[in-house]
């Protein structure tokens, strides 16, 4: 298994790496990047809502106020709870304000 995965944000075409086992938003922020808006970092506020276009992944528990079961089946996740298991391609999916 690769020690890190490549994450592509399709909106901007920007790419960054995420270590195996790390959450995508946290890996991004640690590299000083802001390709995905940063909110609570705890799966609660919905700011970092994205759609996974390709790749395999797992998630930790996310607020149902921002990701419904149908959303989840459609690949909608919160990047702060998203742990890649392969390279991923993402698109921003209507999160809120953030920095």
């Amino acid at each position, binding site marked *: 298994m690769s020690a890190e995965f490549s994450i592509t944000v399709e909106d901007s075409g920007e790419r960054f790496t995420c270590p195996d086992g790390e959450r995508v938003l946290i890996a991004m922020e640690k590299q000083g990047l802001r390709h995905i808006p940063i909110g*609570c970092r*705890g799966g609660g*506020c919905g700011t970092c809502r994205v759609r996974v276009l390709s790749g395999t992944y797992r998630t930790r528990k996310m*607020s149902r106020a921002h990701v419904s079961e149908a959303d989840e089946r459609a690949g909608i996740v919160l990047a702060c709870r998203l742990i890649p298991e392969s390279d991923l391609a993402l698109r921003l999916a209507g999160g809120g304000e953030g920095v």
Partner: protein
Amino acid sequence: MALTGVLRAGFVQIRVLEMDEALAHYVGHIGLELVDKADDGRVYLKGYDEFDRHSIVLREADAPGVDVMAFKVARDSDLDGFEKRIVDFGLEVDTVAAGEQPGLGRRIGFTLVTGHRIELYAEAERSDNGPFIENPDIWRDDPRGMRALGFDHCLLYGPNVAEVTRFFTEVLDFNLVEKVQTPDGPIAVWLTSSTKSHEVAFVEHPEPGKFHHVSFALESWNDVGHAADIISRYDISRDVGPTRHGITRGQTIYFFDPSGNRNEVFSGGYSYFPDHPTRVWTPDQLGKGIFYYEKELNDRFLGVVT
């Protein structure tokens, strides 16, 4: 007794995504005491310097946020008086039986125009682990983590801050300590029932029932710095600070619990008395009002809620 009616913010029940993580945060890092894990899954906490049995209630749920914020009143008979005034104002009042939360007497509850459920109660069991009262040492056991003294206040987001201000001042006898005023009315208000600079605050927001933060009191600005050290050491999700508010003058740091609910620890703030005038901020100075040193607003602080 000079202080009558509503005494203070008494407890808040907060939803968390995963209880074990939440307890590691609130007990291990903020330093609250674990009072009780009840059979229905709710967990009761208190600060080491609080007399009542509990002040923070955690409930595991599918979405974080606030279930209810409650204020303690001086006497049981106050509940009857407030019930009549609340109904006369036009809100529906329901009752919660004594013991629904262990150690608490009967409560009355209602929903504000901002969408938040508020409750009032008079009776709370005295903690057997509260501050000493005879030749009182300053604490029983060494304070842990951020050394939070106890629950202080909440900031709630929802629509119609002008009307909720009228409700708190006309019906619950709160005082309007500070506000942000626009030509169209207030967009943020800090309200107190005591000499604290605020027991609750509201910010105008289109979506009802949202939770901006729960705040815990610390003893000093040094303890705010110590909290910042803990936030970095344990990779707690930091929002803003350490800094100071122009509004209330509190020294502060904001961060998030593991479910994304915002927390504040703060010290200081001025004392309020009912003969004081309301202090007013204009929107062009709001940056300084909220963060006195940075003097600029932060989209995450303003917009991220649960």
